[in-house]
């Protein structure tokens, strides 16, 4: 039987790849929970686009400061060693390649690492790009956190993105609910897949040809509440 990871387990798995001392930006939404699963002993500095380094967890209700919110507009805290700066400095930091890792959600990731995560291109949508393009292009390494398939079972890892791209060739690794896939120069390489899932099964759920059949390992995560 195929084990499917919960969102928390995907976040946990992704967090294992964030090394001690990294400067990390967590995208709005699902990526934010990655902060909860950083392994003990690793000191990570979280960046928020609205001008924060050293961002800490959500405060207790009584300590909420509305002048201290993250890019997702949620109340946060600041840790000792943190800093505030203005928006041009904050995006200079991103664009200038100073952020080690950015974790983003995705509508689609292509075999070449193209990312589509800002617009479904629908005629009725209010176009809203925010900082997605800056982050996708600027971060040293983009980690994508996503379900492997859409709710309808459509591919999210595809040969070519059909949704409008956010950036081309930017994705380093995709962590899904069934696999960890690195985007190499040759295409997507499966690093790990969940137990009970054959490589062929994984391929059948993926819209791009996968490499790594020989080398891939097992995607193991702890039980999380």
């Amino acid at each position, binding site marked *: 039987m195929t084990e499917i990871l919960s969102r928390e387990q995907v976040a946990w798995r992704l967090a294992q790849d964030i090394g001690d001392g990294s400067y990390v930006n967590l995208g709005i939404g699902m990526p934010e929970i990655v902060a909860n699963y950083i392994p003990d002993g690793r000191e990570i500095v979280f960046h928020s686009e*609205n001008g924060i380094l050293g961002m800490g967890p959500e405060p207790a209700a009584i300590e909420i400061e509305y002048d201290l919110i993250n890019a997702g*507009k949620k109340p946060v805290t600041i840790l000792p060693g943190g800093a*505030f700066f203005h*928006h041009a400095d904050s995006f200079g930091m*991103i664009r200038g390649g100073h952020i080690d890792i950015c974790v983003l959600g995705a509508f689609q990731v292509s075999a070449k690492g193209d990312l589509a995560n800002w617009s479904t291109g629908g005629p009725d949508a209010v176009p*809203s790009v925010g900082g997605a393009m800056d982050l996708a292009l600027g971060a040293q390494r983009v980690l994508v956190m996503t379900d492997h398939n859409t709710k309808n079972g459509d591919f999210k890892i595809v040969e070519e993105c059909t949704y409008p791209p956010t950036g081309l060739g930017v994705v380093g690794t995709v962590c899904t609910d069934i696999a960890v896939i690195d985007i190499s120069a040759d295409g997507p390489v499966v690093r790990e897949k969940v137990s009970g899932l054959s490589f062929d099964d994984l391929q059948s759920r993926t819209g791009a040809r996968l490499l790594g059949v020989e080398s891939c390992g097992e995607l193991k995560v702890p039980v999380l509440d």
Partner: protein
Amino acid sequence: MIDKTIETLAEAVSLIKDGAVILVSGFGESGNPTELTHALIDHGPRELTLVNNNAGNGHVGLAALLEAGLVSKMICSYPRSSHSEVFNTMYREGRIELEVVPQGTLAERIRAAGAGIGGFYTRTTIGTSLAEGKERRIYRGEEFVLEDPLHADFALVKADLADRWGNLTYRMAARNFGPIMCTAANTTIVQARKIVDLGDIPPEQVVTPGIYVDRVVEVTNPISEREMIAKDIRYIGGEGP
């Protein structure tokens, strides 16, 4: 003698005319000059172009300014939010023009305007629909697009401390777009939580030097847009809230 302090919000925004391009500080509900924005509604200039990261929330501040029918164009990075129904409706009905700019490019265009930069190259938007029609440059093997400075007639900015020279500090992450917006407008109008004596802000801690500021009005207890939105309070003009 230099004294940039102004007694009333109404006087502070009184110079703003029809057709003005206005930078409005704030990100989400932090750092918004809500009281200045409400004074602008009362003042009532039309056909405004507004620049903000977002496009207003609930029925207060920027959203109330839109709802009052005074704004013909928004320049922003992220108009859509869980409380942006005023903008969403106007946009769908074709009653407001929208220019979407990636957040970092928006910030850099504002900074460029303030710093006398006549355009800059960024990799952001390369390979996307937002780069269409833009000039390109290859530098060290990488492709960049040319972006123009974004000048404005006015800036409305919320600060924490201010003095009579217009020196400013900001509180926590409410700093966001404030410092760069102050530099990019012909006239910068600031609401500060507290006006302090000259010299009370140590010179190493000044974030916006007064040279960028024209008018400062004290708003001691600024209202929280977040609380107003949560309580579904509408700004109806005139006396409040």
